């Protein structure tokens, strides 16, 4: 084993790569070689460091300094000044955890006290393409512990932890596993739902790109607890880097004997295969996902039977979200009681959120359940961009809910949010400032659903189209008051009669906007005015005819 006096980690998630992270890594290597420092300084890629919004970031240890944004011209300076002479370049440096964005003030303690890194612990500190680094950071320790204590212990620990699914519905993971464990079948499956497609959501991507082995370990453990011996990772075709890193991790896990036959001499066999999706939002719905893995059109199935007893190829199947599976190893390593010290009753543990929209800091954050939405926006997001007032927050993606200004003191956990008819959903937090137009936002969402309805059932296939056309009309100044009544009726019909969750949740934001922002809708219709000056109205047709 080689020792280096300095470790330099270059954030190489897909966003950083789009900003030239690879080029920075190559420049660093070249500079270091030029100075003959290659035996003293290690340059290695890592996952997201949380600075993608401003540019390429590198972390330097043991100093614990992050440089961001790093441009090619900074590289020789960093190498000569810092690595050679030990002088830190203060103009682009940040202390880890003390991101001060553009505000020029450090809110270090506050930020750290709000965030808690359980799942993101290794993201940005290990090389995601190295199984050795994962193992060095307690990786595959849970698996070893599981084999020592048996499958029932694993199932009981997960049940005791009261972990709830992180995909949106919040179903207790232990219960799901128990159904499959009890189901009698010679073949059972574990599926990792990595079809992250909810607009405004990118948290699973950060995990897959930054710590892929944690997901693989979670899947093996799910298999061990339920008696499943084959796993699929169903992943979006668009997530190229995630596919690459997971494939590499799977290969390494086979080489090290964590996958395959008789894992670690336990007698337990488990295999994992990646199934690449082909672009269909509806495949995030678990039964549509099953159809897609079987190679068919991704149209949802009738429930019951439910997947835990009859899923893939009609066999008992556990389907868990990426984030849910990543929770399993830490729960087993530290125990379910440790897990229950994080969060609040009914919602234990941490939750990953994709924070974006009109906030000063955008990115993936990890928050223990029970923190107020206001705190997340103000302490982690550093408030609304440009010092503007908050208009509303879209929580849980475009099928989620609108949280008004008056409601942002609600704690973010399943039970508190249920009281205001909301939920953490996919973990997306979109912050909208006072400058935004609600009709414009609803129109974008309606456009999305119209495109993504799978067409299986009439309420959704026709409903999503009609909703879009009415909203589009209103946004162009051609709306009538009765359009709002139509929208409401249609929404309620879709909620009640759509075949799957897609159609049932399509109207969520629309309906809430009709009550919470009724005046704004009416301004578009009665006064032909967009209070935020965003919608572009068409000239009135009658006048054209009169001329």
């Amino acid at each position, binding site marked *: 084993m080689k020792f280096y006096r300095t470790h330099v980690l270059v954030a190489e998630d897909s966003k950083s790569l789009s900003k030239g992270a690879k080029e920075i890594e190559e420049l660093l290597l070249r500079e270091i070689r030029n100075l003959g420092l290659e035996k003293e300084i290690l340059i290695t890629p890592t996952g997201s460091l949380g600075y993608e919004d401003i540019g390429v970031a590198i972390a330097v240890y043991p100093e614990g300094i992050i440089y961001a944004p790093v441009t090619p011209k900074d590289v020789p300076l960093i190498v000569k000044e810092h690595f050679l002479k030990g002088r830190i370049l203060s103009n682009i440096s940040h202390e880890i955890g003390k991101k001060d964005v553009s505000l020029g003030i450090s809110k270090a303690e506050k930020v750290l006290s709000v965030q808690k890194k359980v799942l993101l612990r290794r993201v940005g500190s290990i090389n995601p393409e190295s199984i050795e680094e994962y193992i060095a950071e307690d990786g595959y320790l849970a698996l070893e512990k599981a084999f020592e204590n048996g499958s029932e212990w694993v199932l009981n620990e997960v049940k005791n932890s009261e972990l709830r699914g992180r995909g949106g519905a919040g179903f207790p993971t232990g219960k799901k596993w128990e159904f499959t464990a009890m189901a009698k079948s010679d073949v059972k499956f574990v599926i990792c739902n990595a079809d992250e497609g909810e607009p405004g*959501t990118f948290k699973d991507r950060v995990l897959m790109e930054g710590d892929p082995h944690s997901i693989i370990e979670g899947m093996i453990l799910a298999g061990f607890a339920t008696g499943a011996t084959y796993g699929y990772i169903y992943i979006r075709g*668009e997530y190229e880097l995630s596919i690459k890193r997971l494939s590499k991790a799977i290969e390494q896990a086979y080489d090290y004997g964590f996958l395959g036959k008789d894992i670690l001499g336990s007698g337990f066999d488990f295999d994992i295969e990646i199934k*690449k999706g082909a672009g269909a939002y509806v495949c995030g719905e678990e039964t549509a996902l099953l159809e897609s893995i079987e190679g068919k059109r*991704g149209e949802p199935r009738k429930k019951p039977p439910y997947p835990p007893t009859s899923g893939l190829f009609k066999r008992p199947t556990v389907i868990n979200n990426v984030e849910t599976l990543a929770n399993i190893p830490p729960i087993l390593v530290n125990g379910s009681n440790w897990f229950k010290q994080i969060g609040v009753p009914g919602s234990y543990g941490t939750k990953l959120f994709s924070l974006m929209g009109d906030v000063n800091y955008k990115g993936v954050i990890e928050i223990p359940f029970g923190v107020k939405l206001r705190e997340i926006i103000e302490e982690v997001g550093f408030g609304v961009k440009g010092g503007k007032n908050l208009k509303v927050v879209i929580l849980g993606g475009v099928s989620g809910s609108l949280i008004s200004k008056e409601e942002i003191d609600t704690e973010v956990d399943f039970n508190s949010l249920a009281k205001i008819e909301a939920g953490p959903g996919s973990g997306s937090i979109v912050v909208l400032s006072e400058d935004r137009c609600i009709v414009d*936002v609803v129109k974008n969402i309606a456009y999305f659903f119209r495109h993504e309805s799978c067409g299986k059932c009439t309420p959704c296939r026709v409903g999503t189209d009609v909703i879009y056309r009415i909203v589009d009309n209103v946004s162009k100044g051609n709306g009538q008051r009765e359009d709002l009544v139509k929208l409401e009726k249609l929404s309620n019909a879709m909620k009640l009669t759509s075949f799957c969750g897609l159609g049932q949740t399509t109207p969520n934001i629309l309906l809430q906007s009709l009550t919470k922002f009724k005046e704004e809708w009416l301004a578009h219709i009665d006064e032909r005015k967009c209070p935020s000056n965003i919608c572009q109205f068409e000239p009135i047709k009658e006048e054209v005819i009169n001329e």
Partner: protein
Amino acid sequence: MKEKSLIDLLHDVQESNPKNYVSKDLAKKVAETSNLSLSKVYGVATFYTMFSVTQRGKHIIRVCRSLSCHLANGESILNKLKEVLGIDIGETTSDGEFTLEESSCLGMCSIAPSMMIDDVPFGNLKEEDIEGIIKKFKEGAL
């Protein structure tokens, strides 16, 4: 298990075709290999947005139309692309280089507005970046 599904096969044949689509001949071949009717193959091929049954360009540009990109003025990027390439969504440039498509969400919301060209992601796009990026792709520099 370890058996190629219809979707896997469609990915394979589309990737092997320089024109980036599942041609009639390829679809027939897939139907034969998988013992399915041609209509089943087309049913799947036309369901998913990543598959195309009409000829496409060498490079596929996917512009993100999600709410996050919309809030970051993603429309201006789309319009600029239309202008620079001289084509609309779903069309291919006459030199057969580029096809312009939209995506529901590319999952790069923190660096919106974003797009992907083939497997290369781009974020924090500005209108003025577009011409340069297209040029680099044409020259094969990216």
